[in-house]
């Protein structure tokens, strides 16, 4: 595995709880949740930078809602 560095993360109770829940629900460690979050954020950002939009579509109503991203 590639060399890794450790950093300390300051999270509120609510953030910590969200992290715990995702870790259980997704069956991955808390570190894996954060690394996955970074990957997804970077991927979406790269596509938005290319001029693409991120849309959510309701499978039943086919209603589309745009998610705003900076």
């Amino acid at each position, binding site marked *: *595995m*590639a060399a890794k560095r450790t950093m300390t993360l300051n999270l509120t109770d609510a953030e910590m709880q969200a992290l715990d829940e995702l870790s259980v*629900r*997704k*069956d*991955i*460690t808390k*570190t*894996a949740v954060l*690394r*996955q979050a*970074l*990957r*997804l954020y*970077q*991927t979406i950002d*790269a596509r938005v930078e290319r001029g693409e939009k991120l849309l959510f579509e309701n499978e039943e109503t086919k209603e589309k809602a745009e998610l705003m991203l900076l």
Partner: protein
Amino acid sequence: MTVEVSRIYLLDVATGASIDAELRDGIEQEQLDDWRTKWQPALAVVLQELAGRGVPISQWPQSWHWNWDQKSARVQGLLSYRGLCVVAQGETQGLAQIDLTKSCQESRQAGRPLVYLDYLEVAPWNRREIQRPTRFRGVGTALLSAAVQLSLDEGFKGRLGLHSLPQADDFYRGMGMTDLGPDSNYQGLRYFEMTADHARAFLDEED
């Protein structure tokens, strides 16, 4: 990014000998050059022959129209995508690309992150439908094994998904992956998934 190299062994089909090879967790310029200057010409010869014999397109090798150059340019620098390759005797023997943004569909692990094998291709001279006898055996299995190991390294417990090419369906079934049927979003290719249990058995040290 530095590429990590693992020593692996392939089987030389003609002599039955063991061949030293490298499993590399990255795709570099050498691979793109091999793909263009060695894989593509080898495929073009076969395609001309197939067309001349009037073989229907459904029986053609599946991966001839992939454009690896464009593919790798789009994912440069993104954490979500990883390349893998097998190199032996100075030539690229197989290529794979992984997408880490997808989730499982199999009911027991639905919604959990997995390693999605976006692309896996073995060099034309190692494919029976193109060249007989083939040169090396074990390239496809090595790439698949690497993808499962990567899933373990990422904390995804070996979970892996892929859309199989029709000729490979039986192989994936044989190794115990779950067949979730044809996917209409992927030109009807069958979607296969490996569970954490499958993965453990697959990468088992024992034989």
